């Protein structure tokens, strides 16, 4: 790769080939509101352009515009959109249909939702073939199996007859990519192709795209995740509020960002390097001195937790298998694992929302999970919870104020008057970075970060010693995630609360946790301090996880 000069336009200089796709001054607006504001870029054969941005940056709209599916009510203008010499700005729907799937393959995020659940995987993969009149029914189905095979799907003939929900997330994503490349398009647009995937699977999917790239396909990768981008892209365009704020070769943008926003985004990514620092508000500023962990008696203790479910087929499945841990005052215990590892079930057992099949949970050394519900209830104020999807955890009829006050009344010091309740609720909201103005708001009207703050305020209200955080930042944009993580750290320092912190994101876990449990298939495969586990992983699974982890800077 050659050096890049101070040009915003990737196509200049680097590649002698004619660009496959050229977009100039693209503007998209919905009902007068402009969401893409005059962006330009090119895509070249055998190369990958990444468009990075947070929600609302206009990256997805841009991707859809490239296949003429911006949506009804959209107003698209551009000086030029040219694919392989064809002017796309003036094409009829009929021409677009001929282009989609044949010349441009499109990979959406969330393979479960992006595949028709009611149809066979093979039919889904073969659909572009059928639509574009390729081959016969038999040859198409052979081709679909072949494509699945080439995507590394084991037993492709079997999988082709199954339906998407019968496949794992990784296989589904492969099927989706297989479908996108079925007609060997010159361009693949991949919109968040790895977002919902576990790290190990994520790595495999990125490898597949890299392979396509190596075969000369041009790729436009849409992502919110800079680490994913680092692994595949040749060039990066960073979008914010419909504009490209920075555009350049991947290493330059990621290592020497010129725009403050890019820098902030990079800073916000939690990782092993960010431990003990603040993620938000510019630069990795060191945290205030952290409160020491009280290594006396554990506030929460799990002993040999096991949970067995009997399925409708009368086969028992052990979801949590002999899990034990201790959580001390002021400490953060991270539980990391991929989907299905049993980490959420462990969290629900810890909260006594679910009874373990065997084993017990102690709160402050006292029996907790074995209590009858009536006696357990008064103790609940001592252990709070923050969920991944805060909106779902709020009664849709309740305002932020009511939610907070309801939680306050469950604490040790229930407010004695309406005025006091309101005052304390507002104080609590201020503590989590919200304020009086949010008191009467409906959670639905708040942003994702604000909602999670409300959830944290609610968890804090009864003044618990422990808060179970179940994937609390997984649904958030990276900059918001940084703020919420900072907030959690600040609160811990301030209040000395302990966190049982559950996440699939190794970076987040490393950033937050004092000690870590690595879970796989219901079992704890490795535990230890954060640094021990991450720097000197003992269990092969942990090692595999860490290898698969996409990094901004190659480790």
């Amino acid at each position, binding site marked *: 790769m050659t050096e890049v000069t101070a040009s915003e336009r990737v196509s200049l200089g680097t590649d002698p080939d004619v660009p496959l796709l050229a977009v100039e001054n693209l503007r998209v607006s*919905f*009902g007068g509101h402009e*969401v893409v504001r005059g962006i330009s870029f090119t895509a070249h054969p055998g190369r990958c352009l990444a468009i990075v941005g*947070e*929600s*609302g940056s206009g990256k*997805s*709209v841009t991707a*859809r515009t490239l296949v003429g599916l*911006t*949506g*009804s*009510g*959209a107003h698209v203008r551009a000086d030029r959109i040219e694919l392989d010499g064809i002017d796309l700005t003036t094409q009829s729907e009929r021409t677009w249909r001929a282009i989609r799937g044949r010349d441009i393959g499109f990979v959406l*995020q*969330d393979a479960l939702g992006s595949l028709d659940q009611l149809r066979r995987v093979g039919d889904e993969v073969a659909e572009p073939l059928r639509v574009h009149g390729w081959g016969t029914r038999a040859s198409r189905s052979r081709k679909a199996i072949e494509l699945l095979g080439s995507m590394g799907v084991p037993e492709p003939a079997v999988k082709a007859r199954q339906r998407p929900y019968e496949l794992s997330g990784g296989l589904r994503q492969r099927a989706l990519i297989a479908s996108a490349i079925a007609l060997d398009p010159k361009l693949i647009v991949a919109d*968040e192709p790895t*977002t*919902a995937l576990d790290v190990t699977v994520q790595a495999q999917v990125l490898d597949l795209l890299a392979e396509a790239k190596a075969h000369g396909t041009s790729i436009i990768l849409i992502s*919110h*995740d800079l680490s994913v981008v680092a692994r595949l892209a040749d060039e990066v365009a960073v979008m914010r509020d419909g504009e490209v704020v920075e555009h350049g070769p991947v290493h330059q943008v990621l290592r020497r960002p010129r725009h403050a926003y890019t820098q902030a985004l990079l800073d916000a990514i939690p990782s092993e390097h960010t431990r003990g620092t603040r993620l938000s508000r510019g630069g990795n500023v060191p945290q205030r001195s952290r409160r020491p962990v009280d290594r006396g008696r554990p506030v929460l203790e799990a002993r040999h937790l096991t949970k067995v479910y009997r399925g409708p087929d009368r086969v028992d499945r052990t979801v949590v298998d002999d899990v034990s841990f201790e959580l001390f005052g002021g400490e953060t215990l991270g539980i990391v694992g991929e989907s299905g590892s049993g980490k959420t079930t462990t969290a629900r057992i810890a*909260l006594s*929302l679910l009874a373990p099949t065997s084993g017990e949970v102690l709160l402050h050394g006292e029996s907790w999970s074995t209590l009858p*519900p009536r006696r357990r*209830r*008064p*103790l*609940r*104020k001592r*252990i*709070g*919870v923050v*969920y*991944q*999807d805060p*909106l*779902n*955890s*709020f*009664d*849709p*009829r309740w305002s932020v104020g009511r939610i907070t006050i*309801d*939680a306050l009344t*469950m604490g040790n010091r229930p407010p004695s008057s309406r005025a006091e309740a309101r005052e304390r609720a507002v104080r609590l909201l201020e503590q989590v970075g919200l304020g009086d103005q949010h008191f009467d708001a409906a959670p*639905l009207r708040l942003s994702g970060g604000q909602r999670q703050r409300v959830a944290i305020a*609610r968890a804090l209200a*009864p003044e618990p010693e422990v808060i179970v955080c179940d*994937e609390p930042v*997984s*649904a*958030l*944009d990276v900059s918001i995630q940084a703020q919420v993580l900072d907030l959690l750290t600040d609160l811990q320092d301030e209040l000395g609360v302990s966190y049982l912190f559950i996440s*699939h994101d190794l970076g987040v876990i490393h950033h937050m946790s004092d000690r870590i449990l690595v879970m796989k298939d219901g079992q704890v495969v490795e535990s230890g301090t954060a640094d021990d586990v991450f720097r000197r992983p003992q269990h092969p699974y942990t090692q595999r996880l860490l290898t698969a982890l996409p990094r901004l800077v190659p480790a």
Partner: protein
Amino acid sequence: MSAASVSPAATRARLAAIRVQLRPATAASLLVVAFLAVAVIAPSVLTSGSPTTIDLQHTLLSPSFSHVFGTDDAGRDLYTRAVYGARESLGIGLGATGLAMAIAILLGFAAGLARGIVDAVLTRILEVAFAFPVLLLALLLIAIRGPSVATEIVAVGIGSAPGYARMVRGQVLHVRQAGYIESAVALGHGRWVVIRQHLFPNAIRPLVAVMTLGVGQSIVWASGLAFLGLGVAPPSPEWGALLDAGRDSITTSPWLEIMPGLVIVLVALAVTSLGRTLQHRLEGAAR
């Protein structure tokens, strides 16, 4: 675990859908309902006549300026009768739907909250109730109690209750899985508090729209009973009775049949349209 979970297009589409519902159809529906409300509360505002006044000099007049819906065999002004009939017809619609809902909520919640044997028994009862021909239920009830407004309410109400009960049960099962229920439990709230504060109001909420739809359907339904001669006693101008009275004349004095029919259709249409708008808005608000 997705960062950008809601596509902008989907959001816009939903907003657009709400806007569509708000436009002319909703406005017209509101107008009809407002008119209806006046007819129920103060029918004399809408017409100066009396629904029972006989005028044998002016029988079977076709619609004109002085009699916009025409007159019937006894010379009564059909428009006036339709206006005065609103009270009973709407009463039947509301009463029947209310009764159905009350039964449905009772049964639906019992079945939705109970487990094991109680749930199984209640579900079975609902099954039997469902398998029971609704028409027969009405026929038997009326055979027992004689035709009257109250009987029509009970007949239509009980007849439509099983359907709603199933809906309520489903709703309870659905809300039970909601995150906020678990959150409330995690906060230390007791079972009844959770049911009262969260489960009940949230399970009931979508039923408001369903109820609105039900009112329109009940009115239509009741008119069917009138056809079977199980309607209210004369000289009530209840709409089903008007429809029944006009049936023989459809080829000779069609307005006697067409006008009450249009009134029923219009009202049911307006109420249905409002109900569906409400339904969409509630759904939009819920998520």
